[in-house]
């Protein structure tokens, strides 16, 4: 079920500037983890009794519904979206000027991203987050604040954009901030890797975080193909140099490959190239395309039905697997790929954008399957989508 990321809200008694606050429920409070001044107490569903001892504490504000009673004079909010949009442990950004509340962190969610910048120096044909040239350096301080409010036992976080390395040292500072506040959390940064063709920049990330890794796209084993997909001359050469610099700086690297048509045509060659040139990579992610953003404008050039990728996928996955390079398939519904490849699939679409189609209701492998992007349309649907009624062993 896709969960909303933001909703309108009735905001009463809040300061006019935006602020990020932790939603704290009774359990969190009683375990002593709440940073009260930076939290909103979730009053919804609390028992009918005298809560004054609790509410008199210096909470930033309260999360209420029509049944709750809020202490007079204090800040409180009434969300106008579905009630479970905000839960205990989540971090909200309260935007009084817009009468809006946005979820910046979802406890137990699988898609928590620190959004670093809208700027990017690539211009990928299928970009799901089209770049804008804006001065959004203000995001860094917001992200540092957010990091301080995220659960210490959060398993993993991503940093994405745009192109996070455009923040230069700001990115290293953010990573260091994560190392201080969330030392046990895996941090995965999505980047095109081009900035690391300057080895000094790569070295600035050496040893600053105990669980840092990089997800870097490669769309072909040659510049003509890769540069075309990312629409920038010289990108392939810079990305490759960047990959070696990261390796020398002791960084863990994952190669990400969005399965656009031109890339699929040389997918086996790319797998071979990765093994022969980048054997140090931790993992290769082969990803079905997201039908959003620039992808919609470039459908002709990009779309290939996953069913038509079968041979290329089998070749490449078998090759990488035999050469002991871990490989996973993302965003490919099980009914569209050969059975042999099912063990390599991961349920990956972030819960806030994931859905199933009506025909999935009766499918016996629905729970294993990652489903579809919420905005999938007919022209981005494989012709082979169907409910699976039995699984042959």
């Amino acid at each position, binding site marked *: 079920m896709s969960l909303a990321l933001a909703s309108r809200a009735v905001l009463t008694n809040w300061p006019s500037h935006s602020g990020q606050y932790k939603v704290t429920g009774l359990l969190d409070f009683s375990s002593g983890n709440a940073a009260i001044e930076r939290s909103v107490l979730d009053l919804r569903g609390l028992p009918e009794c005298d809560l004054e001892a609790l509410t008199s504490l210096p909470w930033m504000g309260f999360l209420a519904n029509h049944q709750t009673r809020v202490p007079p004079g204090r800040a409180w909010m009434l969300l106008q979206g579905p009630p479970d949009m905000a839960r205990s442990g989540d971090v909200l950004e309260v935007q009084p000027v817009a009468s809006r509340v946005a979820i910046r962190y979802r406890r137990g969610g699988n898609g928590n991203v620190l959004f670093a910048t809208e700027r990017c120096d690539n211009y990928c044909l299928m970009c799901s987050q089209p770049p804008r040239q804006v001065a959004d350096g203000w995001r860094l301080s917001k992200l540092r604040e957010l990091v301080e409010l995220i659960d210490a036992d959060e398993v993993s976080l991503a940093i994405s954009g745009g192109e996070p390395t455009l923040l230069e040292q700001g990115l290293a500072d953010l990573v260091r901030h994560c190392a201080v506040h969330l030392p046990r959390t895996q941090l995965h940064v999505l980047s095109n890797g081009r900035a690391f063709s300057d080895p000094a920049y790569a070295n600035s990330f050496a040893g600053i975080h105990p669980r840092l890794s990089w997800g870097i796209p490669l769309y072909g084993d040659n510049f003509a193909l890769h540069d075309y997909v990312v629409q920038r001359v010289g990108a392939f050469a810079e990305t490759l140099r960047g990959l070696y610099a990261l*390796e*020398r700086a*002791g960084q863990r690297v994952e190669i990400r490959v969005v399965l656009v048509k031109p890339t699929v045509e040389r997918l086996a060659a790319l797998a071979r190239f990765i093994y022969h040139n980048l*054997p*140090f990579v931790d993992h290769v992610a082969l990803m079905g395309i997201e039908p959003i953003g620039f992808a919609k404008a470039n459908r002709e050039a990009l779309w290939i039905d996953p069913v038509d990728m079968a041979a290329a996928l089998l070749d490449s996955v078998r090759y990488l697997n035999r050469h002991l390079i871990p490989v996973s398939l993302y965003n490919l519904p099980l009914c569209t790929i050969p059975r042999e490849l099912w063990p390599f699939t991961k349920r990956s679409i972030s819960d806030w954008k994931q859905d199933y189609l009506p025909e999935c209701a009766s499918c016996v492998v629905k729970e294993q399957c990652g489903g579809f992007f919420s905005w999938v349309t007919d022209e981005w649907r494989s012709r082979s989508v169907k409910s699976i009624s039995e699984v042959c062993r």
Partner: protein
Amino acid sequence: MDAIEISFDCQFFSVDVLARTAHRYTADYFVELIAMPDCLQVRLIAKSLSPSDPMLAARFRNDALDDRLRAQIAECTAELQATLIRAALAEAWPSARSAE
């Protein structure tokens, strides 16, 4: 023992190239390179008494063509080769994970 003689157009084949090719045959043949006015001649005399090889001349020609191509390649790339090897071995080594 009969000598097998193969002629090469000296516009097309240099002494250097043919000498390299001839060297390949020195296990089983005595080889002579003779500069004639209009061509280079290679004479091969078998060292052992085994029956003569009918394909010898054809093989030698192929090898000469290949060595000529190698000389062409070397012209384009010899300097780069030395530079690349030096550059590769002067820099840092891949990390331990990669070979295990």
